[in-house]
């Protein structure tokens, strides 16, 4: 049976990615970070034998190591890691001339970029004999050459850092049989939440989370004849520079 660890599976894209893997019969270790949400437990009721919910904090090596121990005990090996967890940190003010709060810059960097490194470092030994694939959700927000934002965004900077970390890890691990997927999910709208008695769309967008998950998982699973190249593809299959 194929096995996958998915971070940031509490809701939205991560939750829908879990569903796509489960539909295909994969054993899913779904990382839970937001304890007050229960969407994962509802999904687990549909797939009680395939879905394991594990507490997972990507900023903590110890937390990831604990998940690796669970995977080793319950599955023996791991085929794939999907890093979907994301921290947004502080965007700061639009105007660098004014008051600027730098205190949140470390948050998104630590989750998005260093989190990917901790996952790769920790799960590598469990992946020998498996599919040996790391699938990372990045973003156009991290692509310098097409950056259009005019306010300093710690989120975009963290994704640029992530892409660089992936480059170094790819250079080291691809010759050893590991493969990588870098995925830009497109402009995804958040589900509506209730605020003051009304359903509010916090983030607008072009796609629903389930749509981008349905695009992502086939990209993650299918092998390529060109695994020696690192590319970032979006939910419509278009390649992005980085």
């Amino acid at each position, binding site marked *: 049976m194929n096995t996958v660890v998915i971070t940031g599976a509490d809701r939205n894209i991560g939750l829908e990615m879990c569903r796509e893997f489960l539909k295909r019969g994969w054993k899913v270790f779904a990382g839970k970070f937001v304890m007050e949400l229960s969407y994962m437990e509802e999904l687990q009721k549909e797939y009680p034998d395939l879905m394991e919910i594990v507490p997972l904090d990507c900023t903590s*090596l110890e937390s990831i190591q604990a998940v690796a121990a669970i995977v080793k005990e319950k599955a023996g090996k791991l085929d794939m890691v999907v890093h979907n967890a994301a921290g947004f940190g502080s965007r700061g003010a639009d105007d660098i001339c004014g008051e600027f709060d730098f205190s949140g810059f470390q948050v998104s960097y630590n989750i998005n970029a260093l989190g990917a490194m901790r996952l790769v470092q920790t799960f590598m030994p469990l992946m020998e004999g498996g599919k040996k694939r790391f699938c990372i959700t990045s973003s156009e927000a991290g692509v310098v050459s097409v950056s259009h934002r005019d306010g300093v965004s710690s989120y975009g900077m963290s994704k640029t*850092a992530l892409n660089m970390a992936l480059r170094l890890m790819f250079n*080291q691990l691809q010759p050893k049989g590991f493969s990588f997927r870098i995925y830009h999910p497109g402009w995804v709208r958040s589900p509506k939440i209730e605020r003051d008695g009304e359903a509010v769309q916090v983030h607008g967008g072009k796609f629903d989370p389930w749509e981008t998950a349905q695009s992502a998982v086939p990209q993650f699973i299918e092998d390529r004849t060109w695994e020696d190249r690192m590319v970032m593809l979006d939910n419509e299959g278009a390649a992005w520079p980085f």
Partner: protein
Amino acid sequence: MSAFDKKVIIAGAGDTLGSQLTEQFLAMGWKVFAGYCAGDERREPTDALVPFGFDPMDHFYTMAAQKKVGEPVDMLIVNVDKAFDGEDATIEGDINYETLIAAYEYNCVGALRVVNTFMPLLEEGTGKRICIVTTKASSNFSCYDTAGFAAHVSRAPLNMACTQLFNGLRPKGYTFRLYCKDVENGNDGWAAEYFTRNRSYEPEDLKHSDEERIVLRDWMAREVPW
């Protein structure tokens, strides 16, 4: 009325490149506000040189430096890039995540903090040029390394931050220089010329004018891809 036509802040005047830039700008007749970090050897003050202390990690200390400079400037040079330990580890080795955070906080967020602190003085000046010193390790496209996470991962996001600054500030009249230093080989003599020379030989409203886009250049003036 000031005796000096042009004034520059060099935040990071104490290392090899900073010292060289200080000499070059003084030789060109600029008034230099030279920022030194703890442990740097400071030059003595003159009419043309005002030394001050600053720390890219400490907003309040650097705010005090802003008050010490205390007058409009035409150019800000941010030269706060430094190397960190443990750079030979690959992802299969012993990665120190605390070092990776420290490198990001210094090389990237620290540089932004310096820009933020001195922006009011640039706003009052007429030159409105921001020059950032980095290294080729910031280029993802050019990276064939398997180690050096602190060097690469802390610097790449500064390129993104500079692009975002450019997007926001270019319409307000600011121009930018992003420079890859090459201190080890002593090749940075061109940096002052790069920082001071206007690069556009075309009408500046043309999209491909060098002042209408942000580029990363090395000591040979070659454009380094992101």
